[in-house]
């Protein structure tokens, strides 16, 4: 029974951990918005979640099919997925690649999705409780 409970919550648990790790990365980008030569970093959430669900770590580089895609390995991993540098839209003279609009938008988006995951996991718990109590 506990196994099945664990199985039911595993997806949202991984999603929540990844969301909070990403939130942390975005917060560090925003904090360093004025630091010379700081490079904004992020990771690909979809592949990171897939990796954490299948228990594999990334071996092949991501395909870059758009200018907006992340590039280069920034060193460091988040739950087995590589952290990448963000491609600057408007590079600044001091070598900083933090674009405040992008970071704020991503931060708000990530926060909303985090709340959604919290909601999903709560509803799952409610469903299990309903099944137990009848």
């Amino acid at each position, binding site marked *: 029974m506990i196994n099945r409970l664990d199985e039911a919550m595993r997806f949202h648990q991984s999603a929540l951990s990844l969301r909070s790790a990403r939130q942390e990365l975005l917060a560090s980008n*925003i*904090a360093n*918005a004025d630091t*010379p030569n700081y490079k904004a970093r992020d990771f690909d959430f979809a592949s990171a979640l897939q990796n954490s669900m299948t228990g594999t770590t990334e071996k092949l580089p991501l395909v870059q099919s758009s200018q907006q895609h992340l590039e280069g390995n920034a060193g*460091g991993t988040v739950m087995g997925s590589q952290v990448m540098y963000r491609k600057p839209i408007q590079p600044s003279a001091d070598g900083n690649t933090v674009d*405040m609009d992008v970071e704020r938008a991503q931060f708000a988006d990530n*926060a909303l999705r985090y709340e959604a995951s919290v909601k999903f996991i709560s509803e799952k718990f409610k469903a299990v409780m309903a099944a137990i109590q009848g």
Partner: protein
Amino acid sequence: MSLFNIFNISGSGMAAQSQRLNTVASNLANADSTTSADGKPYRAKQVVFSAVPMGDGSVQGVKVARVAEDTSPFKMVFDPKHPMADKDGYVSMPNVNVVDEMVNMISASRSYQNNVDVLNTSKTLLLKTLTIGQ
């Protein structure tokens, strides 16, 4: 717990930005100080930000690495009646550029606000997380 680390990251950002605001205040207040502790006119000060690894090292906060003095030449103002005037009637005024300082002030205050917003969002997310299962 990643979300708790955001308090440290945004906190470091706020501390750094407030120090930047502090130097702006000092520069603006001393824009007309023809003497300072060393007897020479006041020199404008600028903070130098640098990224510092925080938590597990994959994210970076920000700190003020040093406060640098502006080495540009002093403004020479012709005012023979001034007590600090040299034999040709010129007074060395501080090398503070008031327009630059105002821009710096607005930039610092916006960055500070961004960090406050990030911190508040993280706090909301943490509180939401505590409601899981209720």
